[in-house]
């Protein structure tokens, strides 16, 4: 509609210089888009300002004003920060191989009739509220793991991770990590599946033509193509595991310690669970301390996300340069 009239003199207006007609729809769209983009920045900034302002009294507070430690704020937050990263890391170690396997099964191995329902079932896992996972964790999973943990502590106790004595109730960081792994499985699986499906058919057929077996084909074409996708999927899962509150608060038996042993009664707590457990009975400086731990979690999440972006972008560049 904005094309120049056919009788216009040639060269009077170059195609690039045509003034675009701005309609109301365009204006509305541009404002909504800019507004939405700004809103998320403003929200993030507001959260950061709130966290910092509320945290300062706790960060400057003298040693001995925190629950469970005689030290300063940093002594208070260190076990929590460690526990947060530790539980999420174990969860990822369990979930990522499983998720990649499920995604491969769905995208390349299973007959179509089976693949689709399986995909739906995995997605359904994401719809279960975390409090239900927590209930499952304390009533089913934790008691069921007790004999296994006792066996592990007895026979593999020389390995620092499995050092005894094993917990009598099974509410350990390993149980929490298993629950978290189940919770992050759907998002990692769904993203991996999307990426695997997009592997160019030509690459795959070329691999077969060279005489590759199914596994060799996956290794030569699907994995290299999907590596950055797997990493970003894992990082999204890690983000969810880091922030998970309810299930951890319900299942874990926390203490203010830093320990790599995953079978014992005393486990490092996570930041989010610690806030949920202690906020209702907190007042004054204790509330500031909890908010300050929230700020630490905010920073940890920011670092994890930036790290993931950096890894993904570096990998994409190396893929292009090849």
């Amino acid at each position, binding site marked *: 509609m904005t094309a120049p009239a056919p009788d216009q003199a040639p060269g009077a207006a170059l195609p690039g210089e045509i003034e675009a007609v701005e309609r109301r729809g365009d204006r509305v769209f541009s404002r909504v888009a800019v507004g939405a983009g700004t809103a998320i920045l403003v929200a993030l900034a507001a959260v950061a300002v709130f966290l910092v302002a509320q945290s300062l009294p706790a960060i400057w507070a003298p040693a001995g004003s925190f629950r469970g430690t005689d030290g300063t704020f940093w002594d208070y937050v260190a076990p929590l920060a460690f526990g947060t990263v530790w539980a999420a890391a174990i969860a990822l170690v369990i979930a990522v191989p499983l998720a990649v396997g499920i995604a491969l099964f769905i995208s390349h191995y299973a007959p179509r009739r089976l693949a689709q329902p399986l995909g739906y079932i995995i997605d359904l896992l994401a719809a279960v509220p975390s409090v239900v996972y927590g209930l499952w964790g304390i009533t089913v999973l934790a*008691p069921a793991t*007790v004999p296994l943990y006792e066996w592990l502590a007895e026979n593999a106790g020389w390995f620092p991770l499995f050092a005894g004595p094993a917990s*009598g109730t099974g*509410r350990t960081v390993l149980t929490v990590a298993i629950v978290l792994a189940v919770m992050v499985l759907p998002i990692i699986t769904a993203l991996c599946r999307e990426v695997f499906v997009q592997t160019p058919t030509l690459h795959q057929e070329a691999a077969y033509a060279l005489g590759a077996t199914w596994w060799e084909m996956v290794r030569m074409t699907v994995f290299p193509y999907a590596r950055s996708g797997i990493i970003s999927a894992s990082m999204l899962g890690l983000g969810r595991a880091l922030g998970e509150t309810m299930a951890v608060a319900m299942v874990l038996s926390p203490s203010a310690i830093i320990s790599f042993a995953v079978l014992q009664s005393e486990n490092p707590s996570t930041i989010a669970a610690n806030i949920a457990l*202690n906020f209702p*009975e*907190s007042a004054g400086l204790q509330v500031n301390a909890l908010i300050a731990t929230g700020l630490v979690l905010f920073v940890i999440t920011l670092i994890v996300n930036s790290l993931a972006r950096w890894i993904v972008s570096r990998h994409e560049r190396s893929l292009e340069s090849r």
Partner: protein
Amino acid sequence: MDTPRRLISALAVTAVLATSGCAVNELNRGDSDGPLAGTLDGAGSSAQSAAQEVWIAEIQNANGRLTVNYEPSGSGAGREAFIAGGLDFAGSDSALTAAEAEGGLGACVPGTGAINLPLYISPLAIIVNIEGVDALNLDAATTALIFRGEIRQWDDPRIQELNPTVTMPSATITAVHRSDASGTTKNFTDYLAQAAPDEWGVDAADSFPYGGESAQGNSGVVNAVTNGRNTIGYADASRAGDLTIAALKVGDEFVAYTPQAAAAVVEASPLEEGRADDDLAITIDRTIALPGTYPLVLVSYVIACREYLDPRDAELVRGYLSWVVSDEAQQVSAEFAGSAPLSPGLAARVLAAIEGIR
């Protein structure tokens, strides 16, 4: 009427019914036209919430135009909101300190201060789940050492000595404490700190001071003790279910938990010193040797103004709280929330304080 119109009117009736029943405390509202009318807002202690629910339901039945709200947001949150003036009364597992009670309070006439009213007594129980043991005697020192992790085996001579008739198994003890900060933990540790100061070694605290197994909330602890093996924990006595409740050594005898014994220790305990006569903050004496007292008890307060800015609020608070302190209300909460009814002597003192609210 043709079918579509009938359908529409049926839908309309359903919608009206659905929207009219939006809040739980508006259901089952009696038609009675009691003397109290208006709205009261309270919040705080979650320990009290089950009791507050039944108290509120009953008084709203009797007073059709009265609405009482109670939000179990936690004692600390309740006290803060009350001090800031957002509430007509607060529920709290620990009393306002004398300085807080006499300081600036949002809802009260400046300079008049607030009063602490012990209205909810909840006995705590030490619950155990040991194979082949269905009765257990403990004293404060042994309990302290078990929860500190110093006594690790059930057949430890110090436990066996208290239970000469029971064969204790040679099994590792798993002691479960609360992972969240709570009034239950504060009262449990207060008992150990008062009755066994050397063995326990630290002051009372609302979060458990030592390591060991832990679980969230009363239900979490009960769940862990029930599902675990050779476990011990502490929880509100009303949640103990089928678990064995340990009898505690008081003086020279072992006292099994009963609501009366729990109320007796509160009655026998002194009021906190340096407070006005109507400010009933109790310092529970856990070392009491009186026969028939059970020292492991949580007292939760309702905190109210001495003088309200709005006299109508004063009337409502007076009306609600004098119902709560009545024998009938205390029996109702004992039945539904597992609390111990106030002893008559204490109830009379609390009622006198409530009647002074202006």
